[in-house]
């Protein structure tokens, strides 16, 4: 049996964009969906390094720490939310996740927002561009003035 529909909020960078979380929370309330905050910490095997179990666990703990305040903020908004941290090659980790039993409502991209900027060619090299058709649901990227927010740390205003 599949789970209820959810919004996948996707990050591939410790530099999490608060406006993506804020948008996902607003959307979740509007369409009555839960949220999965999915953070992939890139550890490329092409670099010749193989992450040992201890290093993977360290990275996972780091990721959980990064997600934690965002998860708490979403919970305070009354949204059903959980976090998932993966370490490895993002496209492959994403495909593994999609192979599980998830009913995705939409995907909110919370990584570098220039990745999906259609005016730039750079996005063509990004892993997200290679797998975006596999989602089977809308992929959106809220873009906002986030640099200052990131400098100042994490702050999520309530979403009415």
């Amino acid at each position: 049996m599949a789970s209820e529909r959810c919004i996948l909020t996707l990050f591939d960078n410790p530099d999490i964009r608060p406006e993506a979380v804020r948008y996902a929370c607003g959307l979740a309330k509007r369409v009555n969906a839960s949220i999965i905050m999915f953070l992939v910490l890139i550890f490329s095997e092409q670099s010749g390094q193989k992450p040992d179990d201890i290093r993977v666990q360290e990275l996972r703990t780091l990721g959980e720490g990064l997600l934690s305040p965002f998860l708490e903020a979403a919970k305070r908004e009354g949204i059903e939310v959980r976090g998932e941290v993966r370490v490895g090659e993002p496209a492959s980790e994403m495909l593994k996740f999609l192979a599980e039993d998830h009913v995705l409502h939409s995907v909110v991209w919370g990584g570098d927002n220039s990745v999906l900027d259609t005016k730039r060619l750079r996005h063509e090299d990004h892993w997200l561009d290679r797998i975006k058709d596999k989602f089977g649901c809308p992929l959106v990227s809220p873009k906002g003035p986030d640099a200052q927010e990131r400098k100042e740390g994490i702050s999520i205003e309530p979403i009415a």
Partner: protein
Amino acid sequence: MRKNARLLIVDDDEVARKNLARILKRKGCRISSVASGAEAVAKLGRESFDLVLADLILEEGVSGLDVLEAAKKRCRDTEVIIITGYASVETAIGAMKKGAYHYLQKPFRAEEVRHLAAQALEKTRLRNQVRELEEEIRSGAQTHDIIGKSRKILSILDLIEQVAPTDANVIITGESGTGKELVASAIHRQSRRAGKHFLPINCASFTDELLANELFGHEKDAYTGATSSRAGLLESADGGTVFFYEVAEMPVPMQAKLLRVIQERELIRVGGNRHIPIDVRIIAATNKDLKKHVAQGLFREDLYYRLNVIHLHMPALAEHKEDIPLLASYLLEQILKQMDKPVKGFSDEAMKILKGYDYPGNVRELENIIERAAALCRTDVIDTDVLPDDLKGVAIYRYDTEKHGMKSMKEIEKEYIRWVLNQVGHNKSRAAKILGIDRASLYRKLKNYEIGD
């Protein structure tokens, strides 16, 4: 203020008349002025105006209140602003009770006049807009609740009309919140089965056993606790339409049982062996790529073809944004039936924001936005202040994931290169020759497309 609005100024004081005309003319209105109540009443008998500004106390016996009465008699939508001196404010308030929009106290300031006139004209505009939209909705909503006049929606309505009278099974695809159930319901309501049940079943909400029991019913002693026989939902919907939504999530064993219902037009209750004839039309819906599920062995191919006799695809709201004003007004009207609020419509700015957003949650999301806005609205117009912040000034990049099986040139090139490589046993020189490019170009493409050996 609305351009080309028709205004009538009624004042026996020439200076006041000219002042008002000068203040309001700047806003591009078409202005007529008369010096007496009698002239105003005569003019109102011949022409219609959007707004009348009339002095309360006029010479020659016909007062501002008489002008108000004549204006409302001629056209109830005409707004009237009563101009009054300090001494007659009480009477002006009395005029408002008789239907005047507001009063303007002499001496007036230009900004005050413009502001009040703009508000009155906006009220007229909204009332006209609501009336037009109500009429549009009325003309198209007898057998369905699918709102829209865009080419995409009209072609869906046309297809529904063609498909409904047949008994063909239908698959409806489209993103969440696009109105797949409305389409299924419209097909049912326009079919010969309209007088019977329309039964929506969420395939994602049940386990295999529970779904089997609910759908097919059971015989006495079929399992522990089954103390009596019970008909299932399919039997209770006999003669009607069953709508399976999220059909891609239907457990595979259940798919086999459903196939039997479609092919043999009969069912067997859980724990029974009696073949019970059944006559139902099946409509299924999903937001998944069902063909992909078939390829992955998650959905039975024979059932897929049995269901996919007619395929209807609901467009995402972002693909028919021209329907947003009509949809928004319809949804507001529905919401206000449950809410005691005097909201009349949307400001132009609010509508601009609603039309500019991309709605990953489609019509369901629009409905929620309007419901929230109506609840928070403190005036009679929904303005930008009651819309969610993330709709404003936030760019949403959206990829159309539903390409109806069409591929981009790059995808085709990638697939073709892969195919050629397989054909020549991954010999790069031969592959480059066949592809008509040099080896360096081929290596570059292999790297870009991440095609490995």
